[in-house]
């Protein structure tokens, strides 16, 4: 009742007669007209702009800051890139380097980067919704078809949209991309560059076609149950198999294995007994002198992992391989695995026996102690075959009778553009794309036990790096103007032919050395080695490699090459691996003057401080970085030294030697001085 009365009174008050009605409607109209300016007045960005103006007011550079300040909505419009960013409407001081001390957002200036925001906009790197003019919409859009802003921790991924080649300033992206290849992610997941090249893996999963010759079914069982229990550094992930599944897979793998044809004679070398400590010690020496540790890691007594990661870890290898297989493998690895990175060492049979004794002592009795498998039944073998197809083992390994699993897992070419609406989040994961990818890598099975993706053992840093590399795979990358893209280097097809080419393949030179874009980075690049060295030195070095650098832990192993083999390699290298920049006979070393040489000595020590990195006089010099130069006159070509001194970076880009930009006179004098250095190292002195 009372409410009705009140309403009636109110109606009479406002609309009682035509004057009142006119007055009330006018007020309503004025209010309606006031809504737009009022809304405008309370805009978030206007508040920030006012705050900015009061922030700069008391600074000594207030006048110049105020002069550059532009009010109103600001926009960077780049139609070619599909960018219309209004971020600088609130981020007012973005280009003001003098505000570097400001800690309050949105007023911090942008930290220095190589690109200008006016050329690339903001969302190119930061993603989010650039056209929005409120913080919520721009940064945290939860719209199913949109992406929120990218957490700064993954910002390097945006560099990767254009830079398909590794750049120095993006270590996280570089390491993530290397891991996609190194951990074999791209064996199951296809990742294609905007140019259409598919990323290839750099790991080396072995062929399983002759696995029964190499190891036992028990070892296979234990390994596939948990690879990291055998080798901490194993890159094979854990497939979280049940005992039954592992039993059946091991049964199938052994049953499909075929004998392999070994080239060497099958007589076993004399292997020392496991209690012969002196012989084991000699085996350890052979292992050390052959520089096996350059590629293979082994846990030492202190529990530290020592060695490289090219080949498998050998901490428990004695519990794995059959000795007949090991003898054959050490004689010539490519007889078993044609694609292995391991060189054909020309070991003497005696040394093979010693290494076998040493490796045989690297056992872990606990590793196989709990494994008891009965004889494999046909049902187990059949089930094993089904499992191997289901799990995609053949995406990485060659297996008899199993077709290579192509595109086994979802393609990840545009995973960085996945919108939130397309993602099914597992419980407990923040609803962002980086968090989703991260959770997928960290614990794939948290998205469902039926998922096939295995469990990898990765550190937080490694997961972050992988997420960064995957976030670089965006649709935007594909639509960018081609002029902006820096494509990855194409895989080199360099393959030396003939007798020398076959020898290089046999010795796996390119596992460590890079030539013409092909090969590893463990040892020096050799593309222009023929212009660099003297033939006599090269022949000696191939036969008996001595380390050139005093503090180097790895050095080239001795392959026991014959004179003929060393000669064939040297001839090829001296002829084919020549730089087009100069001719090797450009400088006649015999005509370099003694006066030049003594001037060169002064320059060497006083002007250029070469002795801070190189040892030339072993008594007084101590530099540990560059090669020792005591016998450089016997090793290097004079024209090479001359041009190296002028600009080493032009001859070997990325070398630690500087581009000295040296004038011809200085370079000639130091060349004369260095060509005089012909003190042969004493046998065994340089180690």
């Amino acid at each position, binding site marked *: 009742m009372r409410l009705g009365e009140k309403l009636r009174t109110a109606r009479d008050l406002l609309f009682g007669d035509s004057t009142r009605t006119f007055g009330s409607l006018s007020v309503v109209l004025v209010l309606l007209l006031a809504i737009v300016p009022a809304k405008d007045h309370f805009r978030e960005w206007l508040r920030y702009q006012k705050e900015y103006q009061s922030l700069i007011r008391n600074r000594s550079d207030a006048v110049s800051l105020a002069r550059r300040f532009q009010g109103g909505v600001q926009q960077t419009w780049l139609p070619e890139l599909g960018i219309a960013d209004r971020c600088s409407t609130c981020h007012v001081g973005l280009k003001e380097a003098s505000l570097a001390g400001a800690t309050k957002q949105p007023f911090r200036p942008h930290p220095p980067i190589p690109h200008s925001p006016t050329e690339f906009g903001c969302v190119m790197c930061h993603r989010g919704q650039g056209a929005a003019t409120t913080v919520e919409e721009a940064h945290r859009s939860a719209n199913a078809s949109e992406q929120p802003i990218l*957490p*700064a*921790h993954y910002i390097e991924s945006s560099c990767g949209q254009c830079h398909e080649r590794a750049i120095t300033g993006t270590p996280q992206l570089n390491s993530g991309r290397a891991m996609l290849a190194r951990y074999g992610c791209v064996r199951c997941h296809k990742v294609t560059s905007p140019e259409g090249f598919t990323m290839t893996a750099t790991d080396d999963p072995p062929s399983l076609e002759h696995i029964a010759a190499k190891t036992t079914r028990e070892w296979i069982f234990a390994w596939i149950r948990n690879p990291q229990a055998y080798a901490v550094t194993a890159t094979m992930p854990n497939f979280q198999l049940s005992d039954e599944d592992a039993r059946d897979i091991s049964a199938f793998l052994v049953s499909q294995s075929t004998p392999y044809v070994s080239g060497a004679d099958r007589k076993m070398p004399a292997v020392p007994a496991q209690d012969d400590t002196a012989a084991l010690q000699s085996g350890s020496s052979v292992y050390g002198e052959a520089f096996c540790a350059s590629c293979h890691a082994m846990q030492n007594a202190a529990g530290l992992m020592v060695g490289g990661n090219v080949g498998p870890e050998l901490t428990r290898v004695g519990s794995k391989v059959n000795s007949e297989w090991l003898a054959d493998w050490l004689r010539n690895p490519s007889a078993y695995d044609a694609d292995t990175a391991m060189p054909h060492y020309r070991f003497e049979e005696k040394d093979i026996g010693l290494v076998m004794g040493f490796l045989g002592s690297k056992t872990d009795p606990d590793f196989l102690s709990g494994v008891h498998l009965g004889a494999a039944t046909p049902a187990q073998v059949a089930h094993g075959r089904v499992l191997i197809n289901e799990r995609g083992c053949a995406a990485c390994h060659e297996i008899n009778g199993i077709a290579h699993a192509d595109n086994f897992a979802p393609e990840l070419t545009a995973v960085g553009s996945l919108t939130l609406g397309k993602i099914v989040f597992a419980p407990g994961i923040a609803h962002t794309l980086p968090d989703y990818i991260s959770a997928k890598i960290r614990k794939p099975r948290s998205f469902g036990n039926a998922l096939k993706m295995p469990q990898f053992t990765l550190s937080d840093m490694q997961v972050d790096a992988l997420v960064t590399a995957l976030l670089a795979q965006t649709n935007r990358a594909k639509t960018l103007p081609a002029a902006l893209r820096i494509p990855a280097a194409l895989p080199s097809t360099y393959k030396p032919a003939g007798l020398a080419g076959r020898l290089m393949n046999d010795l796996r030179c390119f596992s460590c050395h890079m030539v013409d874009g092909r090969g590893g980075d463990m040892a020096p690049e050799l593309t222009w080695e023929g212009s660099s060295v003297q033939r006599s030195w090269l022949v000696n070095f191939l036969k008996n490699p001595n380390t050139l650098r005093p503090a180097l832990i790895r050095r080239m192993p001795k392959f026991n090459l014959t004179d003929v083999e060393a000669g064939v390699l040297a001839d090829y290298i001296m002829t084919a691996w020549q730089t087009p920049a100069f001719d090797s006979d450009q400088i006649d070393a015999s005509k370099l003057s003694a006066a030049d040489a003594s001037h060169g000595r002064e320059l060497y020590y006083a002007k250029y401080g070469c002795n801070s990195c190189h040892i030339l006089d072993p008594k007084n010099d101590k530099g540990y970085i560059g090669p020792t130069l005591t016998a450089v006159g016997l090793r290097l070509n004079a024209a090479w030294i001359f041009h190296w001194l002028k600009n080493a970076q032009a001859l070997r880009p990325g070398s630690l030697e500087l581009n000295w930009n040296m004038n011809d006179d200085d370079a000639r004098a130091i060349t004369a001085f260095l060509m005089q250095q012909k003190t042969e190292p004493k046998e065994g002195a340089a180690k």
Partner: protein
Amino acid sequence: MRRPFAIAAFVSIGLVAGGCRRGPPSGPSPGPSAPSPTGFGAAIVDISGEKQAAGAGAPLDQPVIAQVNDKQGKAVAGALVQFSGSGGVRFDPPAGLTGTDGQVSTVARLGGEAGVYSLVATTRDKSGKPLQAMFAEVALDYQQTLGRELGEKYCSRCHNAESSAERVSNHDNLSVPPHAFSDGATLNRISHANLIAIISHGGAALGKSPEMPPYSPTLAASDIEALAAYVRAVADPPYRPQGVFNANQ
């Protein structure tokens, strides 16, 4: 005519409140599941993990470790230490009880913006008074990250006296020992222009040791700027550039 004003006032209050609501979220609060302490100390000190540099949002290489001591300086076990930090720093674990050595260790992940972060380890004495230890850490921006990468390749063999299993330091081989990049006491006194000049033209050109070679033109000017930016970022004591005067501060 008073009512329309009241409505307008309501509308404006609503709009202002709506605007205010979108301010930055408040800092992290200690986790609800912090264990209850069994011991109380009289002091807390930083043991290790200070002055590290990492990428923005990245975990620090080394754990941050704080120790709780009693009045005599002896380690206290079972004291509750809570870690907190500005600007979105996360800790794993965010709180813990000290072990028998009186120490708590945590892995810190810096916030998403480059700059200096202060991490705080807090414990309470018997009366409930908070005791704090501070750790300053640096999150590197792009330029500083580039500087760190270049420094690792070109500079650290001489400027870092520590040898690793993979790499022997050349520091002790030089007649004039190079300064560590973190040696703020010395390097902060070198002006920006001089620092760039030494890296670019080498020691000899500036009357210093010729053992420092000239890195121009091996490195581009922008690379040398990046190296200088990294040197400034890791300086200890921190580098304070001569900047703009601000009457507010």
